[in-house]
C-alpha cells in the first residue's frame, strides 16, 4: 500500500526569510484586532452581561416570527433580540438585564412564558443575575491571566528565558488575534469562549514547544551552524509533524463545527480559527524567527545545560535524557 505523504522528505523552505513578511502582517493583524476590540467590543453573552435567554420551538410550522416580535415588544422589557435559528420553528429570545436587582430578572421569564403560552416547547431558559454575571466575568479574566502566568513559570523552568519570552509573545499574539476575530464576527463571548481561548493557548504552546524542543536539541548538536540556518532546519524537520497533526485536529474540529450542535457552535468556530489558522502559523512564522531577535545562540543553551547538569556528557544525549530516565532501558534494543 502506498502511504499518503503530504510533506515530502527533506524539505528546505527558508522560513526565516518569511519573517520580513510575516512579522509586518502579524503586526498589522494585531492592530486590526485591537482596534476591533476597542471600538466594536466583544459580543458578551448572557454569562458576562446578565439577562435572560430563551430558546423556544414552535411545533408544526406554527412559528410566526413577526407575531412573536410584536407580542414581546408589547412587554416593554427594554432591549429584546429575537432571532430565528435553524428551520425547525426555533426562536432564540434574548432579553437584556432589567433594572431592579435579582428579582426583576426572574420576572422576565414569567412574563415571556405568559405571553407565548404553553403550546410551545421551552427548550432552554437561562437567567443570569447582575451579581453572578459580574463574578463570572472576573473569574474568566482571572482564569486567563492565571493560566498565562502558570504556563510562563513552567516554560521558564523548562527552557531558557529567551524561549519562554518568545513563546509568550507568540501566545499573546494568538489571544489578541482570536479576540479580534470574535469581536469582528460578533461571536458570543461567554464562559465557553474562555474555555476556547484557554485551549487555544494550550494548543498553540504545544505546537511551539515541539519546535522549540527541536531547536534546543539542534543548538546542542550543531554548535557552529548560523542561527538562521539552524532555525530553518528545525522548522523543516518538524514540518511534516506540524502539518499532519494540523490535519487531524482540523478533522476533529470540523466534525464539531458541522455536527456538534448549536450549544457549542461558537466554541467550535473559535477553536477552528485559533488552533487551525493562528496557532500553527504562529509557531512556525512568529515564535521561531523571534528567537533570532532574542539572541538565542549555541552559548545560551550551553551555559544553561552546564549549570544544570554535570559537565562532560554528550550534548545530544542530554536532550533525550530529560524524560526517558524511568522508561528507557538504554542499550537494550529489542533483539
Amino acid at each position, binding site marked *: 500500500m502506498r502511504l499518503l505523504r503530504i510533506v515530502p522528505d527533506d524539505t528546505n523552505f527558508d522560513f526565516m526569510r518569511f519573517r520580513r513578511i510575516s512579522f509586518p502582517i502579524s503586526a498589522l493583524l494585531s492592530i486590526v484586532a485591537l482596534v476591533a476590540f476597542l471600538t466594536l467590543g466583544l459580543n458578551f453573552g448572557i454569562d458576562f452581561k446578565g439577562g435572560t435567554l430563551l430558546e423556544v420551538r414552535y411545533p408544526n410550522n406554527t412559528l410566526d416570527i413577526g407575531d412573536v416580535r410584536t407580542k414581546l415588544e408589547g412587554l416593554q422589557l427594554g432591549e429584546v433580540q429575537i432571532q430565528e435559528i435553524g428551520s425547525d420553528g426555533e426562536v432564540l429570545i434574548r432579553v437584556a438585564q432589567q433594572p431592579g436587582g435579582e428579582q426583576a430578572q426572574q420576572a422576565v421569564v414569567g412574563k415571556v412564558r405568559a405571553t407565548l403560552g404553553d403550546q410551545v416547547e421551552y427548550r432552554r431558559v437561562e437567567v443570569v443575575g447582575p451579581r453572578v454575571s459580574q463574578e463570572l466575568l472576573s473569574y474568566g479574566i482571572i482564569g486567563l491571566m492565571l493560566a498565562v502566568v502558570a504556563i510562563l513559570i513552567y516554560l521558564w523552568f523548562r527552557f531558557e528565558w529567551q524561549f519562554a519570552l518568545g513563546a509568550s509573545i507568540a501566545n499573546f499574539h494568538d489571544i489578541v488575534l482570536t479576540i479580534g476575530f470574535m469581536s469582528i464576527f460578533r461571536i458570543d463571548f461567554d464562559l465557553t469562549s474562555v474555555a476556547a481561548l484557554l485551549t487555544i493557548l494550550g494548543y498553540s504552546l504545544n505546537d511551539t514547544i515541539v519546535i522549540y524542543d527541536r531547536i534546543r536539541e539542534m543548538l546542542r548538536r550543531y554548535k557552529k551552524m548560523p542561527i538562521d540556518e539552524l532555525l530553518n532546519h528545525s522548522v523543516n524537520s518538524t514540518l511534516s509533524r506540524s502539518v499532519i497533526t494540523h490535519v*487531524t485536529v482540523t478533522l476533529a474540529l470540523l466534525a464539531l463545527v458541522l455536527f456538534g450542535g448549536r450549544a457549542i457552535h461558537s466554541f467550535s468556530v473559535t477553536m477552528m480559527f485559533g488552533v487551525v489558522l493562528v496557532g500553527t502559523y504562529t509557531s512556525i512564522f512568529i515564535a521561531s524567527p523571534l528567537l533570532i531577535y532574542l539572541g538565542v545562540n549555541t552559548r545560551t543553551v550551553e551555559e544553561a545545560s552546564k549549570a544544570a547538569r554535570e559537565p562532560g556528557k554528550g550534548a545530544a544525549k542530554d536532550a533525550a535524557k530529560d524524560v526517558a530516565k524511568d522508561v528507557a532501558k538504554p542499550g537494550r534494543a529489542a533483539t
Partner: protein
Amino acid sequence: MLYFSRWKALAIVAACAIISLMAVPSLLPPAAFNDLPGFLQRKIVLGLDLQGGSYIVLQVDQAEVRKARLEQLRDDARRVLRDARVGYSGLNIQNNAVQVVIREGQDAALALTKLRELAQPLGGVLQGSGQLDTSVSASGNTITLALTDAGIQSRTIQAVSQSIEIIRKRIDQLGTTEPSIQRQGADRIQVQVPGLQDPSRLKALLGQTAKLTFRLVDTSMSPQQAEQSRPPAGTEILQSQDNPPTPYLIEQRILVAGEDLVDAQPGFDSNTREPIVTFRFNTNGARRFAEATQANVGRPFAIVLDNRVISAPVIREPILGGSGQISGNFTVQQANDLAILLRAGALPVPLQVVEERTVGPGLGADSIQAGMTASWVGAALVAAFMIATYGLFGVIAVFAVAVNVGMILGALAMLGATLTLPGIAGIVLTVGIAVDSNVLIYERIREEARAGRSAISAIDAGFTRALATILDSNITTFIAAAVLFYIGSGPVRGFAITFGIGIITTVFTAFTLTRLMVALWVRWQRPQRVPI
C-alpha cells in the same frame, strides 16, 4: 526503549483494560447496572445540558440576615433593660447597629453590663474562638450594639446550612430523581434537579420563605380607613393573595406560628369539595391556639403566609383539637405545594434566585445526538487519515486512541464525573490531539531512518527523542485545562475534566501502549526497513 519485560507488558495491558472496562457499567441498562456488585456501580453522570433539568443558584440575602439579627437584638435589649429596670429612650436601629440612650447617668454602667451579655460567642459556646458576634460600646449615655462582620458571616453560614436542610425536604417531596443541593461559597446554594419539564414550580417552592402565622384581624377600623390615616399601633396592613388583592388590617402579635405545626396535608373540604390544606399543631401550638380562639369567638383571624393573607375566617367556636384547615381558593397543585412548604418549614431568611439555567429534555436529547454524531464523524475522519498516512502504524495509533477514549470514559465513571456537551467536545478534541503523540513518534522514526540508522535503531531513537517532546508539550495544555477546571462551572468544567483526563491518558498511552505494540511488532517482524 523497545524492551519490555513480560510483567511490565502484562501490567500495561491490564491497566488499559481495567480502566477502559470501568466505562462499561455506564453503558448498561439500569436493571443490569443494579445487579452489579457495589464496587462496579460507578457510572458517568450526564450533565443537565444532556439529560435536561434545572440548575438554580440561590443566594442568602446578607442584608436580611443583618436585619433579622438587629431586630432580634433590639427586642432583646428592650427586654433586658426592662428586666433591669433601667430607664431608656430612643431604642432604635441605625446604620447596622442598635442604639439606645440611657436616661439616668448612674444606670449606664449597669445597662452596659447587661447589654454586653447579649453578645453571643461565635462558633457556639463549646468551640468558641472567643470572638463575639456583637460589639457593645458606650459613649456618654448612648450605648451602641454593633454587629461585627465575623458575626454576620457566621450567621449567614448558619442560615445557608439551615436553608439547605429545608430546601432538601421541599425538593424531596417533588419526587424527582437524584436532586443535588450544595453549598456554594459563603452565601449561596446550588440546586440541580434533573429531568424537570417546567422549573417554575420548583422555583416557586424554593423562592418562598413560607413563614406561616395565625394572627387576629383588627376590626376597630376598616382597612381603607387605616390606609388613609395610619394603622393603629401594633397593627399593619397586609394584602390578600387574590387578584386584585384585598387589604386587611392585621395585628402584629402572632397567636401561633408555622414552627408549631407537626403535619400538613392537602385534602378536600367535605362540603364544598374545594382543595384545602389540613394541619395539626404540636402540644404547645394546640394549647396556644385553643386559648386564642376561646378568647376571641366571633372575631376574624387571619392565616398569613409570607406577609400575604391566605384567608381570614371568623372564629365560630373555640378550636381545641389542635388541628384545622386552610382554605383559600386553591387549585389542587397549590394546596399540594402549600402542604409541602408547611411540612418542610420556613426558611430562616428569604433566598433570591441569582442564576438559573434550564434545559428542556428535547434539547438535551438533541445535544446527545449531536455529540454522538460529532464524535463518530470526528473519530472516523481522524482514523481514516492516520491509516492512510501511516498504514499499519496508523492502525496502531488508531487502536491506541480508541483505548485512550475508553480510558477517559472509564476514568469519568470512576470519578463519578459529569459528562456535558462541551465535555464531549473535549473528548473529540482529545482524539485530534492524542494522535499527535503518535505523529511525533512516527515522524521522528522516519527522520532517524533517513539519517541512516537501521530500522530497529531508528524506531528506538524515535521513541526516546519524541517522548521528551510529548511530555513537554502536553504539560502546558494540561496547565490550561487545570485552570479551566478551577474557574469553570457546569458545562465548562465538564470540558476541563474530559480534556484534562484526555491529556493524561494520551501521555500514558504514548509511553506505554503504543510503545508496547510497536515493540511486539518489531520482535515479530524483525523489519529491515522502517514501514512509514
